[in-house]
Structures are given as C-alpha cells and as structure tokens.
C-alpha cells in the first residue's frame, strides 16, 4: 500500500529525514515511535504534502502512485488521511459543514454522487454516537473552544466519515485520559480492514495496549533504527530509546 524508499526531507534548511525506508501493506497497523525531534511528525507532514517541508531525496509510492507528485488535496482524495497532532481551530466554519465538504470532494473525485444534507446528518450522527460525542458538536465551529481530548476525538470522527485507505495518526493519543484513549482506540480499530492500513505515530506504548500493531519502528535522527513486532514497544517502554541507540553502536 505504502512504500517509502530512502526518503529525505528538510525544514527551514535543516535536514530532518535522512533516508527513511518503510513498507506498509494493506491490512497492517504500524507504530512509529521515537524520542522528541526524531522526525516522526515531519514524516507525517511530508506524506501529507505540507508545503514548508522540502523533499530532498527518495520516493514514496501509495498504491503504486507517486504520492509526492500529488497536491495535498489530491492525496486526501486518493485515500490518505492525516490525524493532526495539533488540530487547528477555524472560527466561524461549522464542523459538519467542513466535514461534508471534505466527504463530497472525495466522492466527486471518485466519480460518486455527493451526499445531501440529510444523508450526511444521519451518517455523522451515527459516527458521533460511536465516538461518544455530544450533539452540541454539530453546531460548533471546527475545533473552536474544543478541549485537547475533544480535538483528537474529532480527528478520529473525521477519519471514520472519510474512510481513508491509509491513515497516519500523529500523536493522537497525547493529551487523552484513559477513557478518551479507549474511545479513540475503538474508533481506529473499527476501521481495521484487510484493505486499509494505519500508521500510529506515538511516544507511548500505552496506545498500543488498545490498538495492537503488526510492526513497530523506532525512528531516531531521521532514520528508522530498529523494527520489530509489538514486543519491541514493550521493550522500549522498559529500557528507553537510548537502549536502541546503544545496541546499534555495540
């Protein structure tokens, strides 16, 4: 589904990614872990097509297509979703309005008919119930005045409505209490499907108790230093990131 080959990128003249190689197959869940500043969020932003991130080398294939050649909105319509670490507030723009516009943009691109307001309302109410979100959400502006937890839950809600093929969730677990974490995990798990894939970017093993990954990768200095199964996350939790670095030197 996703093949990253020797990907390098820089931000504001500083090299952040230094040759990432990663293959994510359909139906898989991968976790990318790593210390602060290791390049985790940069990787997520580069994949989404953020303008300030300059790709200096390598390539990315998404279902065989050259992902880096697509505009951000084209990536989204092709089924790429980024759950933002810091979802932005857009005052005056209604949540439901934005999400309906997003869904219809995707449907148009796929040659499918647009959903009308009634269908959409029914759909979103059902998803909101699943995410245990209050109905007041329907009338609020995008992320405006949301608590950190509400914003993250909103990201997952958007993901459930848009049903992406590949979702990259950038620290979706940070700032969540245990109940919210369970709800978010339930949302992500509900999307697990042999035709989809998920990349979880996280600091903490905690999330992986609820969303079981197929592969775990440790990112440091803009490279993947180590990959393994879910036991790697447990080991990291116990021994810290220095252990990975030291074990490589040794």
């Amino acid at each position, binding site marked *: 589904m996703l093949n990253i080959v020797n990907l390098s990128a820089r931000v504001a003249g500083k090299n952040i990614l230094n040759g990432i190689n990663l293959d994510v197959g359909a139906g898989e869940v991968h976790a990318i872990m790593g210390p602060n500043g290791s390049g985790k969020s940069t990787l997520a932003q580069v994949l989404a097509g953020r303008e300030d991130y300059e790709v200096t080398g390598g390539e990315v294939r998404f279902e065989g297509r050259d992902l880096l050649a697509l505009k951000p909105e084209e990536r*989204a319509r092709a089924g790429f979703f980024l759950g933002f670490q810091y979802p932005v507030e857009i005052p005056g*723009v209604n949540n439901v309005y*934005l999400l309906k516009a997003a869904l219809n943009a995707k449907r148009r691109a796929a040659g499918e008919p647009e959903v009308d307001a009634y269908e959409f309302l029914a759909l979103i109410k059902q998803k909101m119930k699943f995410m245990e979100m209050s109905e007041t959400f329907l009338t609020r502006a995008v992320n405006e005045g949301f608590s950190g937890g509400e914003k993250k839950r909103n990201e997952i809600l958007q993901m459930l409505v848009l049903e992406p093929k590949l979702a990259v969730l950038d620290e979706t677990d940070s700032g969540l209490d245990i109940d919210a974490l369970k709800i978010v995990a339930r949302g992500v798990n509900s999307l697990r499907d042999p035709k989809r894939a998920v990349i979880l970017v996280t600091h903490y093993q905690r999330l992986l108790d609820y969303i079981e990954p197929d592969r775990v990768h440790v990112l440091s200095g803009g490279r993947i230093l180590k990959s393994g199964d879910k036991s790697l996350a447990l080991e990291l939790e116990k021994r810290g990131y220095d252990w990975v670095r030291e074990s490589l030197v040794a």
Partner: protein
Amino acid sequence: MASKSQDVEALLGQKYRHGFVTDIESDSLPPGLDESVVAAISLKKREPEFLLAWRLKAFRHWQTMREPNWAHVHYKPIDYQDISYYSAPRAPANAPKSLEEVDPKLLATYAKLGIPLHERARLAGVAVDAVFDSVSVATTFKDKLAKAGVIFCSFSEAVHNHPALIERYLGTVVPAGDNFFAALNSAVFSDGSFVYVPPGVRCPMELSTYFRINAAKTGQFERTLIVAAEGASVSYLEGCTAPMRDENQLHAAVVELVALDDAQIKYSTVQNWYPGDENGIGGIYNFVTKRGECRGRNAKISWTQVETGSAITWKYPSCVLKGENSVGEFYSVAVANHYQQADTGTKMIHIGRNTRSTIVSKGISAGHAENTYRGLVKILPSAEGARNFTQCDSLLMGGQCAAHTFPYMEVRNPSATVEHEASTSKIGEDQLFYCLQRGISAEDAVNMIVSGFCKVVFKELPMEFAVEAQNLLCVSLEGAVG
C-alpha cells in the same frame, strides 16, 4: 508548490463582472464647477427656491474648504474642474412615469446587473430604486408601499411631492458644510433616494437602491435621506457597480438617517464599485459620508456594510446617539485586493443616557492592498451609563498587503463602559493545510475560512444580500493566498 502560486495569480486576476458600458445617449453638463453649474443642476430639476439657496450656501462653503488628507490613502490630486456634475440618460419625454416608459437599454443594464427591477422584484419582495449616473430611473412597488403609508421615491420626486419633509430633515444629520466631500455633494447632488416611514409603521418589505455610474468622466453625487418616525421600522439595502474605465471616477455620496422615538433603521450596503485593474489603474474613488441620528428614546440604527469594490474607500458610517437608551451598531466587512485602499470605520457619538453601541469590523487585505480601520467612540458627559463594545479583526492574505487599526476613544463620563478588542492574523497556513488535507480545494478552503471570519457580519445582512455578499467575497478573493 509552484503550481499553486500560479493558480493564485490566475484567480487574483479575476475580472470585474460589472464592467460593461451601456451605450445610451445622455444629457450631460460639460465638465467644470462654479455657481452657474450648481444653479443649472437645480434648474434642470426644477427645484424650489429653498433648495437652490441651500446648494449655493454649501458651494460657497465648499470653496473655503480643503480636501482632507488625514486618511491613510494615497491618490493624485483630483481636478474638480475636470468632472461633469450632471449626466442623465436622455429620455424622449421627461421623467418616466412607469417601468414601461423606461429606456429598454437601461432595463437591460439592470438585468445584466441582476437587479430585480421587473417581475423579479415582486418575486423577491424587494422594492428597488435604481440610480443610473445622476438620475433615479425607476422605483418599483410604489403602490404597495403607498398603502402602508411609506414614501419611497427618488430624491427629485420627493423634492416635488414632499418638499416640507425634505426641508425639515435635509442636512440635519450631515450639515451642508460637514466636511469637504459632504459640502461638494450638498452643492451638486443630482438624485438619490428618499424614504419616510410614518409613526407606528413597519415597512412591509425590504427597500433597496442600486447605484450605477455609466457615463465617463462623471462624478456621482447622490443623496439618501431616510426618516423613521415614532415606532416605525425599516430595512434598507444599497448596492453599487460601475463600468471599467482607466480614469478614476469620483463618487461622493451623503446618506442621512433619522430615527425618532422607538424607531429602527437597518441600513445595509454591498459596495462593489469598480476597484481598478490589477495594476491599480482606474477605479472609483468612494468618498462617502453616512450618518444616522437616533433622535428619539429607544431608537436604533444599525449599519451593515460589505465593501469589496472601489479603488479608494473613505467612509465612516456613524451613529449620533442622542435619545436615551438609543442603540447604534456597525458591522463591517472591508475587502481590499490588488492596489485597493480602504480607510473605513465608524463613529459612535454617545450623547443620551444609557446609550449603547456595538462595532464589529472585519478587514481583509490581499495583494498590495492597504486596509485601515478608523473608529471613534465618543462618550459625552451627558451620556450617563453609556456602553460600547468594539471588535476589530484583520485578516492578511499574502505578504505584500497591510492592515492598520486606528481606534480613537474619548470618554468624558466616568460611568461609561468602553471595551475594545483587536486582532490581526495571516490567513492561517495551518487552517488552509488542514482543509487541503481533508480533500477540500484551495479555493473552497479560502472561501470557507474567509466566510467563517466574516460570519458575524454576514448574519446581520438580510438573507438575499447575505448570499450576494458571500459570492462577491469569493470573486474578490478566490485563491488570494500566497
């Protein structure tokens, strides 16, 4: 992304949609201004003596005045002798008595502009007075309004049919010598609209005026006077367009509103004068004095404006809050793109006890534009318990435009409460990227974000205008993110 910035360029270059010229014979005075021109205008309109005297007094006063230069706008000096002060479409007879007598070319012009002059007017339920160059062309719905006792007609008609009302109210809110442009208007105004809503009457429909400048080298100097008597209420809409011309054209209008006890006036403007081209050539100089007076207790005057056009805008719709408990409101969206310059805001003058005012100003700048908010909140010693709330937000698109905020406050009563909030933001790259990542196109995303920014103002507009305003905003700004 190079392709994106090219799109932006292309979209920024969007053409003004109302820039056609109507080929119609007109009866114009030659350029130039002196007392004989003032007298000639008055004569053409067969005005009563008092009005000619008033005009001449204004003209003499104007000659002693200097053009104001305190606004944050720059333009070459205007040659007032190079402007024609009167231009009227030449009609076979005199004034048209019904729509059937109006020149079909004029009606076609209004149809192009999308003005509901004919049957569409009835469907839309909006009464329209259309001012083409200097004269008022047709006023729809006269009968229905007359039944309610509402007078809505061209200014010239009002001068003939209701001279007592004109004499009583003209110049009582904006005196003839109020400022340079108001004095000029008082001397040479050629037409405009007049509204009188009698005591206790709620005007049964929205009233609307469309202004259009067609002839070259003409100034447009219209005057609007709206009086809402005790307990009356009225909602009035004003829209403006002009053809594209290389030279600048002057528009110096005066609007006066009078609200007596318990009366309410809501005045909405969607101003889309030709803004000049993308290099700043041509466009309308919109130097307008708008003021309302809450003369009675519990009166309320509300200004809502969406300003997307004009090369230069110089305008401060204001409220004089004389009556106890009277209320003034100002809701504004001012958009400036390319080389447009806008210096706009409001004045809230609190005189009566417990008077309240609200100011919400949203400025949007793109291209090389300069957008200034200038506002005065003045609380006089008599205004016990007065309250004001001001919110000024500026949104910048791209790196070459500028936004300025000049709030003036003069509080001379210690019991008053005055609050001011201001913010300036660049259109969020984060907001934009968020929308893009959800699959929404850049144009749709910008429209969405800007509309969200302006929402509090748009919701003050009457429904059919809110839609028009939103569309205008999209045309003015589509993709204006660099």
